[in-house]
């Protein structure tokens, strides 16, 4: 295609000038098309994993971290009560501590960004 043109238009215009213009024009067009295709592809690719996927998994991480903290606190408190016979006090104290631990773990996860 390129050769065809050069041969056909060779006689009328200075060949070097026209060729370079042609090339620059094509390059610009190619870049434009590539950018468009890439933009579309990125847009297609991005939301699936980054938006929904990671947010969804992060939500589950936060929820389970909090639950885990409270549960561990409750079990530890109950265990202390069983061992030491301090019936409600251990459960109350460790439940609160577990609550604090759960919140702390959640805050840490929220800050870490991954």
């Amino acid at each position, binding site marked *: 295609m390129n050769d065809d043109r050069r041969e056909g238009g060779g006689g009328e215009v200075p060949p070097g000038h026209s060729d370079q213009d042609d090339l620059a024009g094509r390059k610009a067009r190619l870049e434009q098309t590539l950018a468009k295709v890439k933009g579309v592809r990125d847009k297609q690719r991005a939301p699936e994993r980054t938006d929904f996927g990671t947010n*969804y998994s992060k939500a*589950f*991480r936060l929820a*389970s971290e909090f639950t*885990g*903290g409270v549960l*561990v606190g409750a079990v530890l408190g109950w265990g202390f009560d069983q061992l030491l016979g301090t019936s409600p006090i251990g459960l109350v104290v460790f439940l609160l501590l577990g609550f604090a*631990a*759960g919140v702390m773990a959640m805050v840490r996860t929220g800050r870490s960004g*991954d």
Partner: protein
Amino acid sequence: MATADKVDPVHQFIVNDLIPLGRVADMKLAFQNSSLFMFVAVALIIGFLLIGTRARKLVPGRMQSVVEMLYEFMAGTVRQVLGEEGMKFFPFVFSLFTFILALNLLGMVPYFFTVTSQIVVTASLALLVIFTVIIVGFVKNGIGFVKLFVPHGVPMVLLPLISLIEIISFFARPVSLSLRLFGNMLAGHIVLKVFAGFIGTLGAFGFFGVLGAIAPFLMTIAITALEFLVAFLQAFVFAVLTCVYLKDALHPHH
């Protein structure tokens, strides 16, 4: 599955003894349907990886590129979280990821048993992770691993309280790790069964029942798609959190 008038969404989680193996110290020992599916999962993973890498072409074929993608994906994740030195934990993390992923996906096949919906299994995996973290932490840092429970810049007065909270938070990790995987798989499969049960129940009410059954049918399709996503995501999250916890073992300062 039960008939249309008797839908039992938790029937799928019953563990059956396939081959009884006698008793060990007053505990029943048997080869169960969960064991069977774990073996199937391991066989699938090994077969998949072996067949995929059999050709060893420079330009990979279809199977090989899937295997390579799986490898690159996990290797990238481990490198991103743990850095280059963490690559010695790559086999561990990769095994966990593929095992959980295979179990989750096997559970999506109708009539198959979902092993990861048993908290015994997920808790064992989580304990494996946390014991690895503790052992690696103490081997690498000696007693310095305890620094994990002593954050920087905390006043001496508050230190015992904060340390206690940190310790509870550390022990909450395996709990949250196992609960998340177990809860997701259990809840997802129950919801799936309940909606699928609606189709049969509504369909028994003649023409308008069948018309009404379209809604739960669409819902079942949507939830099935969501469950495939969850199956992958939960395996991925488990692997990522394993990396995050191992990072604490390698560098125990906040």
